[in-house]
């Protein structure tokens, strides 16, 4: 009976997924509970800030620069038709600060730092380092997971801000320096249109949420990975796929909540 078999498989997978969601939630709660230790030994977080934040710096800044340059070019081409090239700064800045900064930085962060986190923790598990810690009465969640989580949460908004800043300079470079849009109107219209609370702080809030989600997914996938070479590689792939989807879906929800409808 292939039909019965299919239904069985679907049911099995659904139950499995629900099971994993429950486990992930418990894991997330444990991370929060045990994170006090990480803050008391801040050096652990500093070390992770280096490998997640500092190491992602170059890719974030270069990507931001190029995204801003493309926005400047495309925006100019479109705005020129309506004779409003002076609004180029507004377009570049709002696009970056509200959407592209948090989202693209989070996507890059997921594939640059998230996958590394998953692979590292998965390998720690495969080589029984985590079991060894438990034997020594060291809580692996407090020692390994929580510092990485907070490092990710701290570095994500900073990286998103750098992405936006680099992007605006990219847009400035293409729009003002190369094409020759008026510099004064580029900056002054931008300043008139971008609101600190409504646009910049909401962007920071977005990237904070993305930081929580991406690191939580990456850490859980690593901690939950089957302790084999194949298991670790699959977990790494799942981290990138799941967190990218989560970022894009959450972005829609957050945008609808922050900017949707009511002006």
């Amino acid at each position, binding site marked *: 009976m292939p039909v019965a078999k299919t239904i069985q498989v679907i049911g099995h997978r659904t139950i499995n997924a629900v099971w994993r969601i429950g486990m992930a939630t418990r894991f997330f709660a444990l991370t929060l509970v045990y994170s006090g230790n990480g803050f008391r030994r801040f*050096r652990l977080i*500093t*070390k992770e*800030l*280096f490998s997640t*934040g*500092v190491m992602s*710096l170059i890719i974030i800044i270069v990507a931001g620069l190029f995204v801003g340059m493309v926005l400047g070019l495309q925006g100019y081409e479109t705005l020129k038709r309506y004779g409003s090239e002076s609004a180029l700064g507004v377009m570049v*800045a709002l696009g970056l*600060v509200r959407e592209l900064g948090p989202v693209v930085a989070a996507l890059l962060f997921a594939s640059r730092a998230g996958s590394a986190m998953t692979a590292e923790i998965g390998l720690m598990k495969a080589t029984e380092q985590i079991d060894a810690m438990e034997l020594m009465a060291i809580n692996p969640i407090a020692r390994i997971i929580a510092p990485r989580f907070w490092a990710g949460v*701290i*570095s994500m*908004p*900073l*990286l998103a*801000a*750098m992405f*936006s*800043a*680099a992007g*605006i300079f990219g847009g400035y470079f293409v729009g003002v320096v190369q094409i020759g849009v008026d510099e004064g109107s580029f*900056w002054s219209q*931008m*300043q*008139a249109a*971008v*609101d*600190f609370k409504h*646009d*910049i702080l909401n962007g*920071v809030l977005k990237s904070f949420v993305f930081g929580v989600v991406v690191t939580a997914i990456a850490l859980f996938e690593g901690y939950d990975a089957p302790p084999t070479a194949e298991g670790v590689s699959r977990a790494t792939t799942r981290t990138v796929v799941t967190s990218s989807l989560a970022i894009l879906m959450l972005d829609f929800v957050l945008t609808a909540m922050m900017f949707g409808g009511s*002006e």
Partner: protein
Amino acid sequence: MERSKLDLWVGMFVVAGIAALVMLAMKVGNLSTYNVSETYQVQAFFSNVGGLKPKASIRSAGVLVGRVTGISLDTERYEAKVTMSLDKRYQFPRDTIANIQTAGLLGEQYIGLAPGGDSEMLKAGEQIKKTQSAMVLEDLIGKFIYSKADATAQ
């Protein structure tokens, strides 16, 4: 606690991130032009606010003197009640006229304050009596067409 090179890098990262945020706030956003000075609230009733939105600017002689903080419909008069917060540095006579103007032909709408000659000044919570509603482009076009039709009928 000994210092290490790692701390230096992490410190640089955090400083660069905060610098980017400050740059966004100052150079890109409007934080540098935010009025930290105190404000006072006044109200005005308009029969039609057109496309006026909260946070729209209030100008007098072209100078930004405040912002619209709220727009609601007053169900006793069936008129739009606009709450404005004005900069404390600027005082206006009580017979000031508030009219809704448009920046450019299709630009955004703002409130222009034309001061009167009264020697008493508006106080917080008071109401601007003389207002002029928004110019609605469709109404103007309608009037124009009617007047043309009238002219040809005669």
